[in-house]
């Protein structure tokens, strides 16, 4: 076990605090020390609440000394994407418009983590209103990738990816509407779980697209994601779209072997036009899974380009509708790219939007039929490793939409289908940039993805590598 508490995984540090091998104060101080070291380089935090965090840690230690632990994450300090309402706290949503917005309630996902005993370190950067895949932010500056400071983190959960990778927080909530958890996980070398639509309540989470938004964690390991999912999943009277389906024992799933499982590799689309290094790492990942006992087969999926197009129509309209009042009253307060994308939704007729919504059922049925013979599908998260901040700073230029679509090509179809997908660190390029692969599963079968991800992480060490300050 590491002597530096911040370098432990979430699961390890929760056990260490429970067993009094580290106090919550020692753990919190370790995170704060790393934040002080890295924040000037990364810009991953929007707010750092050191004094409050240490006071909460002392309270957690005092409670533990009296034998009253709150839950599975007692005394564990965390920070989250700044779009989860936390009563009494400013929640900027990465925007100028909500720079001074104070939440009056706490989001269900966050409250469930608090109920398990977590402590707040501060809030994490994000793309303005979660509407962008690169990690640039006009109002608060770009977030930097700890594996290469000139490179993007991916978005929109940019601070979450960067902070988890640099070991500034043990895990962080993100959100995924078009790839916003999986892309930062891929570009920053951490594990990210996009949950099934409806698996975790969205109550108190800033909306972008009510039909596609999902809540999920970024963490160091599949096991950590399993722990967090088990705490957050389940029905919520505040969000009728949160399903009442039973919550399985995700942690138990991570301990199972993958011998005899069948994993599908798409015959097209997800393997087309890949950067050679991403292609190499996909092949190496498949080899590891095969060595661990999985059967690898090719799968022919329905046309994924149509799913991407449908997802674009849905997000554009729903985002514009949420923002309409501010589009009228405060258009000057948006960054250029976010304003451009919000204006896109104005151009889509209601009939086109509803056709895209009506097609979701048949499209999901067709996808599930195509993968009926496999336990999961493996595919790259993106066709490239992290581009530089400069080359992806496209603003509202004529090229912007094509850059965005290229980055999100492999993630958007999964949001349209509402399926779960686990992004896992799978290798590094020759330049030292991480590359992730995504495991795609059936609706509500996160347990299968976590099982495969954990087996892969027992056989590899990509998730254990820690970036060094430049």
């Amino acid at each position, binding site marked *: 076990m590491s002597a530096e508490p911040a370098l432990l995984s979430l699961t390890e540090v929760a056990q260490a605090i429970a067993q009094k091998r580290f106090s919550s104060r020692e753990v919190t101080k370790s995170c704060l020390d790393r934040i002080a070291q890295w924040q000037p380089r990364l810009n991953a935090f929007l707010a750092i609440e050191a004094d409050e965090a240490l006071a909460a840690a002392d309270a957690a230690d005092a409670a533990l000394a009296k034998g009253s632990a709150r839950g599975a994450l007692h005394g564990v300090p965390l920070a989250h994407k700044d779009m989860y309402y936390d009563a009494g706290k400013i929640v900027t949503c990465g925007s100028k418009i909500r720079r001074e917005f104070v939440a009056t309630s706490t989001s269900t996902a966050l409250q469930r983590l608090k109920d398990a005993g977590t402590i707040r370190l501060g809030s994490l950067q994000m793309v303005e209103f979660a509407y962008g895949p690169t990690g640039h932010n006009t109002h608060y500056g770009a977030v930097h990738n700890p594996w290469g400071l000139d490179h993007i983190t991916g978005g929109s959960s940019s601070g979450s990816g960067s902070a988890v990778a640099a070991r500034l927080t043990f895990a962080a909530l993100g959100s995924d509407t078009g790839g916003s958890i999986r892309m930062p996980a891929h570009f920053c070398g951490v594990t990210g779980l996009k949950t099934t*639509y409806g698996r975790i309540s969205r109550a108190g989470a800033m909306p972008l697209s009510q039909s596609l938004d999902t809540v999920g964690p970024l963490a160091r390991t599949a096991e950590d994601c399993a722990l967090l999912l088990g705490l957050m999943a389940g029905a919520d009277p505040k969000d009728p779209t949160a*399903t009442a389906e039973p919550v399985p024992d995700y942690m138990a799933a991570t301990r199972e072997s993958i011998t005899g499982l069948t994993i599908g590799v798409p015959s097209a689309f997800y393997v087309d036009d890949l950067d050679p290094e991403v292609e190499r790492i996909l092949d190496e990942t498949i080899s590891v899974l095969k060595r661990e006992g999985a059967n690898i087969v090719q799968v022919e999926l329905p046309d994924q380009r149509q799913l991407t197009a449908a997802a*674009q*129509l849905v997000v554009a309209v729903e985002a514009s509708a949420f923002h309409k009042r501010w*589009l009228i009253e405060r258009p000057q307060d948006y960054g250029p790219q976010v304003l451009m994308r919000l*204006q896109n939704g*104005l151009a889509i007729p209601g009939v086109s939007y509803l056709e895209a919504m009506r097609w979701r*059922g*048949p499209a*999901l049925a067709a996808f599930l039929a195509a993968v009926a013979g496999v336990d999961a599908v493996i595919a790259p998260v993106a066709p490239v490793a992290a581009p530089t901040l400069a080359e992806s700073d496209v603003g509202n230029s004529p090229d912007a939409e094509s850059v965005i679509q290229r980055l999100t090509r492999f993630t958007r179809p999964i949001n349209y289908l509402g399926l779960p997908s686990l992004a896992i660190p799978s290798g590094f390029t020759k330049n030292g940039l991480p590359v992730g692969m995504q495991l795609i599963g059936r609706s509500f079968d996160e347990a299968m993805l976590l099982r495969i991800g954990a087996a892969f992480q027992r056989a590899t060490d990509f998730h254990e590598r820690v970036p060094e300050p430049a």
Partner: protein
Amino acid sequence: MTRPTPKGIKAIADVAGVPVDAEVAARIANSIGPAFEGFAAVAGTLPFDLEPASFLVVQTAKVST
């Protein structure tokens, strides 16, 4: 399903209550056009009785099997 023209976008944005100028309309047409083209093979082909809620039916049906 054809991609919208800047002229058509200007009209629809006016109706939506968020008017845009010609330059913005042209930019929107450029941005959103590929989505219309990508969805063209599906648009206009869906059966009469298909509701958006069919998605939830398919999603939950898979859980119980």
